[in-house]
């Protein structure tokens, strides 16, 4: 602990400068400032083949505009069609000419601009790409395209049992607030170019963002290109922080009857995890549902041959609220048995935890995988963005895999017992509800409200 305390002090005193390496080889971002006063996180890798800049804008637009909840999704997609003054094709091909990639994506917590290119091209790529933020084309024909695409996508969701089960769960639990419906075609259809532009003007500002840069350039060089582009943004975001309603998980089994060759299941509930418990719960989750050789895979695929795939995961149900879920598509005639085994495995895992052997395998696999991802500049940048978005620190990011490798089974088991919910809301899409002891049976997603 004393050693760790010294390290933390060392980090704090060097936080102004470029990223640094820890004793075990972990890299940590440093916090720099452009000449224009804009803070940004920076990590220099002198031999990096790619450079990346990620800008994460806190986005509560949907929470503040009940009549325009789909604007972030539509706006982000429209930005992908390029800036004013050139066709979408010209823009995309220009980017390909310099092997650059850029775009904007929207999620329930933020909207993210990113650009990636070779080190010698990153400044030019950022200059070209940032126009999609400052002056996106927002063409009517592209809006029309998105509306059609949204309607088609929604129809395809209904045809895929797994997607349909997920859709039912989302609309079931996100009772209040925008996120249960913000991708629905009728919400997308409401959004005009003016709405997308309003979203852009309210959200993309300088006091609202976190910038992360990784590449061969030093902080000063990145600072110049960041200043040149981000200084064009307004100083203050107009969108206020919003409070997202928490999802509500009824302790029920809901069956949507739909003919098909397989039965889809989703079992889910909210989990409240302390930031420090992240590694433990991630390890625990991998032991349960991290692949076909893990517990769920062995039980449902290996023993029963009931599925091609089953897994579990920790996700983000709503801003600030995580969820745990188990998902699978099962043979119709083996689905009841497969569901029963999945529930048994979950309960056993929750109460009795994982063995040392399992713990070691999973933490090693996960830490290796995370390190491998972080070896890429983009992976490293997004790792920090995700940490900062959930109120963790650059140090947390740097030490994450170290902590993971050092997490014993006893800690994993403590967290599982303390945090994993006793009941899981279950959604099943099956030809018939028989055999599932359903609390509510529906035949259309629109009926889901009566199952709450």
């Amino acid at each position: 602990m004393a050693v760790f305390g010294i390290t933390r002090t060392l980090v704090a005193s060097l936080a102004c400068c470029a990223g640094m390496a820890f004793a075990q080889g972990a890299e940590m971002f440093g916090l720099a400032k452009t000449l224009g006063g804009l803070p940004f996180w920076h990590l220099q890798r002198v031999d990096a083949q790619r450079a990346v800049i990620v800008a994460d804008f806190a986005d509560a637009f949907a929470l503040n505009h009940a009549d325009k909840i789909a604007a972030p999704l539509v706006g982000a997609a429209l930005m992908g069609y390029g800036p004013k003054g050139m066709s979408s094709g010209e823009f995309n091909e220009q980017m390909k000419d310099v092997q650059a990639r850029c775009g904007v994506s929207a999620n329930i917590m933020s909207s993210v601009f990113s650009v990636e290119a070779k080190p010698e091209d990153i400044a030019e790529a950022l200059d070209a790409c940032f126009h999609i933020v400052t002056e996106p084309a927002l063409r009517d024909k592209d809006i029309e395209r998105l509306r059609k695409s949204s309607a088609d996508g929604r129809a395809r969701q209904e045809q895929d049992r797994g997607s349909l089960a997920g859709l039912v769960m989302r609309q079931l639990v996100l009772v209040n607030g925008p996120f249960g419906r913000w991708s629905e075609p009728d919400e997308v259809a409401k959004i005009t170019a003016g709405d997308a532009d309003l979203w852009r003007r309210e959200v993309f500002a300088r006091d609202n963002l976190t910038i992360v840069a990784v590449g061969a350039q030093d902080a000063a060089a990145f600072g110049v290109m960041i200043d040149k582009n981000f200084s064009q943004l307004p100083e203050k975001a107009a969108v206020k922080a919003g409070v997202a309603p928490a999802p509500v998980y009824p302790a029920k089994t809901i069956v949507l009857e739909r003919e098909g060759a397989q039965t889809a299941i989703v079992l889910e509930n909210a989990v409240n995890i302390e930031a420090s418990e992240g590694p433990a719960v991630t390890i625990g989750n991998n032991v349960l549902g991290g692949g076909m050789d893990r517990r769920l895979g062995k039980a449902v695929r290996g023993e029963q041959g009931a599925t091609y795939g089953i897994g579990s995961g920790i996700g983000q149900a709503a801003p600030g609220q995580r969820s745990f879920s188990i998902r699978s598509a099962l043979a119709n005639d083996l689905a009841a048995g497969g569901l029963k085994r999945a529930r048994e495995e979950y309960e056993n895992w929750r109460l009795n935890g994982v063995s040392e052997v399992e713990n070691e395998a999973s933490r090693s696999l996960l830490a290796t995988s995370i390190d491998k991802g972080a070896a890429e500049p983009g992976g490293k940048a997004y790792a920090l963005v995700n940490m900062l978005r959930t109120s963790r620190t650059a140090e947390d990011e740097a030490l994450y895999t170290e902590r993971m490798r050092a997490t014993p089974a006893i800690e994993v088991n403590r967290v599982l017992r303390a945090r994993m919910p006793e009941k899981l809301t279950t959604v099943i899409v099956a030809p018939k509800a028989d055999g599932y002891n359903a609390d509510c049976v529906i035949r259309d997603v629109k009926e889901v409200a009566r199952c709450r």
Partner: protein
Amino acid sequence: MRGWVISAVAGAWAAFAHAGFALAGPEVKIGDNVFLLPDPKAKVITLWMVVNAGCRDEEGGQCAGLAHYLEHLMFIGRDGKQEFNTAQVFAAGQTNAFTSMQATAYYQTAPAREGQVVADLEKLFDRYSERLRGIDIAEDAAARERNVVLQEFNFRKSDSVRRNFYTAMNKKLQPDHPISQPVIGSKEDIAAFSVEKAKAFHQRWYAKNNINFLVYGPVGADDVKALAAKYIDPLPRKKVPSRAWLDARRSFEPLDGLVSVNDPEAQRREVLLEKIVRYEDADPLQTGISNAILFDYLNSQIKGSLQDVFVENRRLVSQIHVSVTPIGAGAMWYSVAATLEDATTPEAMKAEIAAYFANLEKSGVEASVVERLKKRRASSNQEIDKDPQKSLSALQSWFSNNSSYADWLTRGERLAAVTAPGMAPVLKAMAGPGRQVFGVLTPQK
């Protein structure tokens, strides 16, 4: 080609499209068919085994999903305990595989543990060489795995109207060729899987001289050479059956067929043109790389491309894509898939596609466009060259398309040799008569 790919598309031409054109990559050739991608910074060790046999090599020239079933069986088997997934050596590692028309590829990874890399790689070599000697499956495990394959079939919606539409198109185009059949097989095929037939396929095709091994990690050539000598060299060489029958069974007779279905899952009307053409081909490898550049253009948004003409400017379709499947030297199977806008009829679009390629034959692709696209690929090659992981992926893809290492080494100079006039024979063939089937998928409300 719209067909069954549980993996990448077929042939050397698609291999060009996937692999890039590295001039001098980091790979080290250890033996005839063992390659090392050394990476001192690697976090993992990886061993790929790419078997040069897939669905089209099944018995009687009928692709019935057996190669894919064998892929599944390779993961289970007697190991004292008859446990599921005994193929996976390291619980902290990952393993997977895929099957295509022409290859079956397996890989395992594990964390690169300091001081243990060679010992851990040895375990992977040992396991793969054991599996190459033979497989032994309990009947109940084989039956369970048949059901798992059936669940994969259902998960991929292999019995949907759309999938059956693609199969019908392919069968009309190439009625007597396995390339038109789904890699996963039909439900009836799956129900009829037998371990004996799977073992027979294994016996016939899983020979060390029909496989490429790729090793990646923080390991040196001498160590990998020693492992290859211990585990691969002692395996028996086998006489690999020739595939001459593939050529004999291709159909080139002129055809202008039509397949039309109503699909309850389709959202918009879609058309699919599948066409086989022939041309003089003095250098199939060079033609392959030239075609890769041509298809880069056709699928781009550059002026004159399919998207530029039909999506952006004339707004006849909302999406359009062209793909190519090699079907032997001097022949090409290309597909144009498009989603129609409301005002466009399928018949009109068929005529438009024909007119497009007729015009392209006359005008050719602009030399400046060809050079632009060559430059992109060359730049991509350089990135691949510098990155052992990217090189691993590219080389694996190359071998999975039955392409040779000797050809891999010539990609850079062949890219440099691509010219706009050099594309003329292929453009002429694409615009000319051939064997084609036009498909229409209409939403059924």
